[in-house]
């Protein structure tokens, strides 16, 4: 299964792309997509401590279910923000 992932701000610069396709045999949750991204782009290792994620434009968590066709985005906390990042 392929899933397209959008990246923003410092995470986008770290990876060098604003969208990437994560390929996994089986994708179930946000955590699986992040693991796939980490496997393809090891430089994002460590970023998980201050990470936000959205699925279809809503804030999501590690266990949020993901299916093909969903719009997934990973990004840093917003600039003025206190939105609780994903706990690792």
């Amino acid at each position: 299964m392929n899933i397209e992932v959008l990246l923003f701000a410092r995470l986008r610069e770290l990876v060098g792309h604003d969208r990437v396709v994560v390929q996994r045999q089986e994708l179930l949750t946000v955590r699986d997509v992040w693991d796939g991204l980490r496997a393809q782009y090891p430089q994002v290792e460590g970023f998980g401590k201050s990470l936000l994620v959205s699925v279809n434009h809503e804030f999501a968590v590690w266990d949020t279910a993901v299916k093909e066709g969903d719009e997934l985005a990973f990004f840093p906390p917003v600039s003025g923000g206190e939105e609780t990042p994903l706990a690792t």
Partner: protein
Amino acid sequence: VIQIIRSPIQIESLVNQLRQPEDGAVVVFDGIVRNHSLGRETLYLEYESYEPMALKKMEEIETSARSRWPVNRIGIVHRLGRLEIGEASVAIVVTSAHRKAAFEACQYVIDTLKKTVPIWKKEFFVDGEVWVEGEVPAGRG
């Protein structure tokens, strides 16, 4: 009025567009690029956004503000791209019959926007650049 734009924010035309005869109060918040950050001299800023989600979150903030205060019109405009010192990055306009609701709703809108709308800024200094990221709450991460 909810907008994300790449040109200078026209605050006066936004106010004129929103105000109506029944308004007794118009509160305007202008968020400005300042010339320093943590003791360093800022040259300029760049803003980027996850636009579809940002617009959705801005609409949710408007709905939420309307449910809490008796306001008439709400305008939220954020600018993206490169901004120079002194330029407005965000403008909030709230109109209401009486000032208390407009003041409180305006503060709520800008405070909530800064926490939940996916917009990021990068500060450029003489000797480097840095992404400004929100705090990781204590005990998390």
